[in-house]
């Protein structure tokens, strides 16, 4: 059974058809790539799934739950988490606090938390212990008390991943995770994403236009262009697909 199912989603920006009936099915346990040239509608679809974008016709279901009526905060409870294309951390806070906010859906009773009642304190201790584990997993133990703006780029990327995974999601949405990374950082991040997928058993949906990352980590890929599906298959199949080559390199080059 598929975990995420997108059926015939349409989004119009004025006269522009950003998404023109897109279908995507993400099987559980997979690293699934969403590929396409600039303006293909990848990010729009990503925003539809993460509920920052309203869609017209079509439907998006996760494990049988309709995402349509939910707001951006509603999908966290279903086990969907995300990172942002350009790092979006809580800048004034420490690494620890960022990971703790990631566990918001585990907070329990807000009243018990606010007034430090015994149950609230127990919960807080458990959350902090779990946050320490996450930090250890991502090599952040040494910078737990540091303000995240003072951290180097690579560390900030890892804080964002740790924050996204702190609530133990079952589906992780990554919006161009290696944007702005050099080759070494890209390699490192690819390994982390693979480890997350295998060891934490998180299904991963990656939106990306960087072919090398897609080839390195994705099990299956769907390619969009002009808001439509143009191809689907393994990364190797996709890279040799004439329609994909045409979309990326243009018609004349494809024929040459």
């Amino acid at each position, binding site marked *: 059974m598929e975990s995420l199912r997108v059926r015939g989603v349409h989004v119009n920006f004025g006269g522009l058809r950003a998404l023109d009936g897109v279908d995507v099915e993400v099987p559980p346990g997979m690293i699934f790539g969403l590929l396409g040239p600039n303006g293909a509608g990848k990010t729009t679809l990503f925003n539809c799934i*993460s509920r*920052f974008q309203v869609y017209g016709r079509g439907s998006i279901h996760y494990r049988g739950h309709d995402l349509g009526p939910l*707001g*951006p*905060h*509603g*999908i*966290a*409870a279903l086990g969907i*988490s*995300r990172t*942002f294309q350009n790092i*979006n*951390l*809580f*800048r*004034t*806070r420490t690494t620890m*606090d960022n990971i*703790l*906010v*990631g*566990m*918001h*859906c585990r*907070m329990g009773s*807000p009243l018990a*938390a*606010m*007034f*430090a009642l015994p149950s*609230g304190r127990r919960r*807080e201790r458990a*959350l902090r212990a779990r946050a320490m584990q996450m930090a250890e997993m991502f090599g952040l133990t040494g910078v737990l008390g540091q303000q995240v703006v003072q951290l180097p780029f690579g560390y900030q990327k890892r804080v964002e991943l740790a*924050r*996204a995974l702190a*609530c133990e999601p079952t589906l992780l949405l990554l919006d161009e995770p290696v944007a702005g990374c050099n080759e070494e950082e890209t390699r490192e991040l690819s390994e982390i994403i693979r480890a997350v997928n295998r060891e934490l058993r998180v299904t991963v949906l990656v939106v990306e236009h960087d072919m090398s990352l897609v080839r390195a980590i994705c099990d299956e890929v769907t390619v969009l262009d002009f808001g439509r599906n143009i191809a689907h298959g393994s990364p190797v199949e996709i890279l040799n697909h004439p329609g994909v080559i045409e979309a990326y390199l243009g018609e004349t080059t494809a024929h040459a």
Partner: protein
Amino acid sequence: MSERGWQIALTFLAFGALAALPTVIPRFYASLLAFTFTYVIAAVGVNVLTGYTGLVTVGHGGFFAVGAYTTALMARHVGTSIAPGLIAGVILSGLIGFALGMICLRLGGAFLAIATLGFALAVGAILNNWPLFEGREGIQLSKNTFFGFPVGDVGFYYVSLGVTALVMLASWSIMRSGVGRAFIAMRDSERAAEAMGINLRLYKTVAFAISAAMTGAGGVLFAHHNRYVSTETFGDTWLSVDFLTAVVVGGQASLFGSGIGAAFVALVPYYLGELRDFAYILNGVALIAVLLFAPDGIAGALARGLRWLVARRRPAAAVVDSMSVQRGAGWNR
């Protein structure tokens, strides 16, 4: 001792000193300080919203007025005094805060500031025109009692000191919990906060309600301190501006800052005496100076200064050590 340890120790020391103060100062100054505490309580409330949650309010004078008139009307028509007034005032201003928060949900930045200013103006207009509130004539409160015991200047000092401590403790407890983390997360990045499952609508309205309830408590005590409320004080928006000034000048997202800032705006007009109208100018100058030179306010500047001093002393000691080691090496040679 850690920085946090020092903070807690200094807080206890400060409140201990304030508790001992009435034994050594004249009654008049106890009364002046009690008046200052009502401002501190209001500023701590504004700080919850503006400092921690990042929602700028220029309307909290309205909640101060809600608290003050609630207890004044109860005193007049039901004959109650401080304690019932506090409970009712806190609940009512909290509810009105919740409602205003819902109305202003989609607003942020300057738009929210203007909307809250509108709220303060509306409250002023209602107080001026609805006969129930007696306009400029005002409402007189009878002698203060607290759970049946008559309360004089010194007694009232302790009541308001206690409420100040409670409100600060509540704010501290909330801000170090998951709820406070959610408030701060919304301030730093609404989108990321939402993606982490924080319900912006709910948390913004709750921040509004908590903030308004605290400021309302300040208003209740203010009414009992003066034992008189009228639109002379509550009819315009100067209180709202004062509270926001207190939070910004003192230092946003800092309890100590709210205390210092509130003391500044409460006491400057008093010490200017005949020249009290110049207080507005002084507040404006302080506001501009802080925004230009220390955006984290007096509290932030003090903290930075202290850290700098500590950091300067330690390397200095290290330099002395290394010098003596070198000299020692020379002697041995």
